[in-house]
């Protein structure tokens, strides 16, 4: 009997359950798909390097899954709450008919269970389907072919999803049961009449709060622009978060003040109704709106920045490296063996067997402070401040011209000829090279080594000198006449080589690494402290890119959907309260067109406000993050950020449309 009633209830209120059901289903699908990545990568032909980076990705996804589960749990509770509210009256009627509270709670629990089980099953099915597509994408991102098409199913992820969501459903069931047993019948029966509104604070208090909020936010922005994000982050948060909450707390009064300023406009059509509805809604939900705004901000930054960072990593990997392997040999070893290659030979690496050609040069720290001397020419926001206030010094590198020419010959770059008191320069970044050209055209001299040097534009080279990544080396290296480097401190001797012809590079690479592994086991004392090959670096950068993208998408979309669903539910429950208001408007003779337009306006503005504020926040947040990234990589990745933002626009837009059409349906119900 109870079962029958529960079953019929779900079928009857299917439209009410839609939002709840879709949310649940989506949550399960998403959760399963990301947690089944291990099964997905198992079917891929990953080499050792890629397998390692895939492992890193899996670990990070697992770590973030807990966050995602918590966010989803909160979301499900919220959606459930909305559903119960809408059915209060029905529950009240059961109680007046003499059904015990236990039985009513039982019906509700059964309903929750029913919807939960269906959502879980459908969600899992969709998740399995979705993960098939995802494994194609994963394979593509790892730049590998699928061995052959295999249907992927991860029992582990399925069980994990069932356990996580099962626990959530149990929580929801208990929550509902407690809720019903604590409610008074009269409250339940009259829940749809209860619509007294708390009148907001005085308008000037609101305006003051908004202005204070804006000031705090501007301070936070200023800190981001002026300082290094990473150092000021606690302060940025200290100002930015309370600022956002204050802004929303005062927003209703502020909006009213602005909207009612122009009386002619305010008293036109339904404008005053729309304004009042919006402001009262904002007034009663400002805390959750501020939270949603911050959540959207995190979403935009994670999605935006993750596409930015992965693009940066991608560009980094796509750098043109014209040699295959590099060793950082310790200067002492070079001295005792009489050369870098000789030191490697002495260790047991037959250099000629692997390399067609090698070059070596010593890398020194110069005494030129890049930040202080070049600050005006660099496109790094914080360079000036760092140099002036923080006493941060970044010395340029130094190499001797004859040694470095051997490297330039290796990679087929024209050699550099220097006269007395002349310097050459090497950088890996076009933009940096341009800045240096400007610098040299302005005729500014470089003071170093107790001498004055000139830098002429034709002695500037743009090449990648390291495989390890541009971040491993100073942003600029000066080429000194041979005699002038003597006073500088030696860092490393760089031994770079190109693999022999005739054998595929992958084979040489593998053989070399195997040999070095064996040598290391026999003798831990290596003459070099670092060894990288171009192929390894590519593989690991792919892994890093996939990890960043996946974690970004996983977290970003979860947050985004959570924020959008909460907004949607708030509007839908408002549409419920609004039914009566719109009925009054109709009796007053308002055209249906006008009513729809006012509803659209309300929902659009309600959705746009947190998004707009989050977007402005994100412009600065991403700016801060990117300038950090750009400082490391010196690559412009701004346009890639927009791809992340496009995803947000689409998902948010879908929720907005669904909200509008369901609200419209709800306010028409009484007709």
């Amino acid at each position, binding site marked *: 009997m109870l079962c029958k009633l529960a079953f019929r209830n779900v079928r009857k209120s299917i439209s009410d359950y839609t939002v709840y059901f879709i949310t649940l289903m989506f949550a399960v699908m998403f959760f399963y798909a990301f947690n089944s990545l291990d099964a997905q990568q198992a079917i891929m032909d990953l080499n050792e390097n890629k397998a390692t980076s895939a492992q890193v990705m899996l670990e990070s996804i697992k770590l973030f899954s807990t966050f995602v589960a918590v966010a989803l749990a909160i979301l499900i509770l919220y959606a459930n709450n909305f559903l119960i509210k809408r059915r209060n009256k029905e529950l009240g009627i059961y109680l007046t008919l003499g059904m015990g509270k236990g039985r009513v709670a039982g019906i509700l629990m059964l309903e929750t269970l029913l919807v939960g089980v269906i959502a879980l099953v459908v969600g899992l099915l969709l998740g399995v389907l979705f993960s098939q597509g995802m494994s194609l994408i994963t394979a593509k991102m790892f730049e590998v072919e699928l061995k052959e098409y295999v249907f992927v199913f991860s029992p582990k992820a399925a069980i994990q999803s069932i356990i996580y969501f099962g626990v959530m459903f149990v929580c929801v069931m208990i929550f509902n049961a407690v809720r019903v047993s604590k409610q008074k019948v009269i409250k339940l029966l009259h829940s749809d009449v209860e619509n007294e*509104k708390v009148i907001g604070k005085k308008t000037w208090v609101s305006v003051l709060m908004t202005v204070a909020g804006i000031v705090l936010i501007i301070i936070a922005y200023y800190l981001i622009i002026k300082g290094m994000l990473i150092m000021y982050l606690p302060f940025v948060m200290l100002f930015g978060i309370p600022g956002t909450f204050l802004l929303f707390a005062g927003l209703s009064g502020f909006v009213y003040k602005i909207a009612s300023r122009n009386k002619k406009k305010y008293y036109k059509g339904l404008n005053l*109704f729309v304004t009042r509805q919006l402001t009262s809604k904002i007034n009663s939900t400002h805390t959750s709106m501020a939270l949603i705004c911050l959540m959207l901000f995190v979403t935009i930054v994670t999605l935006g920045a993750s596409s930015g960072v992965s693009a940066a990593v991608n560009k980094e990997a796509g750098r043109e490296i014209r040699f295959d392997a590099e060793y950082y040999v310790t200067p002492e070893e070079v001295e005792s063996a009489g050369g870098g290659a000789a030191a490697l030979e002495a260790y047991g690496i037959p250099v000629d067997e692997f390399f067609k050609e090698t070059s070596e040069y010593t890398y020194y720290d110069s005494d030129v402070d890049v930040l202080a001397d070049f600050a005006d020419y660099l496109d790094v926001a914080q360079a000036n401040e760092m140099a002036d206030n923080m006493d941060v010094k970044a010395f340029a590198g130094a190499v001797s011209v004859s040694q470095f020419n051997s490297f330039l010959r290796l990679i087929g770059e024209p050699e550099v000829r220097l006269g007395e008191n002349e310097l050459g320069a090497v950088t890996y970044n076009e933009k940096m090279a341009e800045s240096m050209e400007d610098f040299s055209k302005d005729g500014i001299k470089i003071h170093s080594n107790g001498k004055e040097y000139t830098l002429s534009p034709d002695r500037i080279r743009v090449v990648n000198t390291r495989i390890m990544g541009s971040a491993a080396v100073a942003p600029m290296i000066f080429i000194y006449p041979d005699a002038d480097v003597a006073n500088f401190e030696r860092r490393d001797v760089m031994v770079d080589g190109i693999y022999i012809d005739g054998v595929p590079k992958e084979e040489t690479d593998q053989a070399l690494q195997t040999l070095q592994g064996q040598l290391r086991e026999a003798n831990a004392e290596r003459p070099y402290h670092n060894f990288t090959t171009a192929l390894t670096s590519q593989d690991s950068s792919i892994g890093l890119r996939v990890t960043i993208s996946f974690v970004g998408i996983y977290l970003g979309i979860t947050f985004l959907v959570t924020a959008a669903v909460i907004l949607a539910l708030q509007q839908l429950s408002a549409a419920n309260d609004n039914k009566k208001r719109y*009925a009054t408007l*109709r009796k*007053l003779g308002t055209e*249906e067109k006008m009513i729809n337009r006012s509803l659209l306006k309300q929902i659009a503005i309600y959705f746009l406000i947190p998004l707009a504020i989050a977007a402005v926040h994100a412009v600065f947040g991403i700016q801060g993050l990117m300038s950090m990234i750009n400082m490391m990589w010196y690559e412009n990745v701004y346009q890639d950020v927009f791809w992340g933002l496009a995803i947000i626009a689409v998902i948010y837009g879908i929720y907005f449309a669904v909200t509008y059409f369901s609200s419209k349906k709800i306010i028409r119900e009484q007709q």
Partner: protein
Amino acid sequence: MSIYWEVKMETLLKVRNVEKIYGGKSNLTKALDDVNFDVGKGEFLGIMGPSGSGKTTLLNCISTIDTVTSGHITVNDTDVTMLKAGRLAEFRRRQLGFIFQDFNLLDTLSGYENIALALTICGVGYGQIKERIKNIAQTLEINDVLYKYPCEMSGGQKQRIAAARAIITNPSLVLADEPTGALDSKSSRMLLENFVEMNKRLGATLLMVTHDAFAASYCSRILFLRDGKIFTELVRGADSRKDFFSKIIEVVSLLGGDVADAV
């Protein structure tokens, strides 16, 4: 005694052979059964009757919220039973003013804004809105509640704001459905005096559905409905309100039912 208005006054509302039938073939309920009457311009007409007599159905049909099964209702030469759905909103906006038992004020709007809304929907400019609200507020003595929100007002204040909203657009006909139903006696009296004021001073035509004999005694004429038919009619004429009230009570006791209980 005639149901039709015979004096020199212009006829505003004509109700002719109106029938409203609910239910299917097997189970017919005639909520309204061949109802005929006229309302002249400037009249204050009351409609009384026990529960289920069809008062509210009649009001809903006149106000275009409900449709008749057969018959015609004409307001100012517009046959509302023939109006297309698209024209209904405009008709309500231009010709009718509503006052409900549960006030139906918008709770997010102040009193002033609630009144103004009726005008902004009609496209009246702000200058006019200000002027008209000022006048009506004086007439109905609601100046002190204009800037309050509905939740801060008493029932009587709410209903007077609602009355102001109903009349501000200068409608041809103001329809009031049990306006005193949720009010205490003092507020009721004040509201009814306002109605008389609206009727006499502003020349509004009022049609009030009520089952409260006291409220009805403020009307100039009363139609009594029973089982969907007009049972009888009372015209106040030169009677004092007290005498009129006694006459109403007589009819009510004849009618029986819950109207008698309400006295």
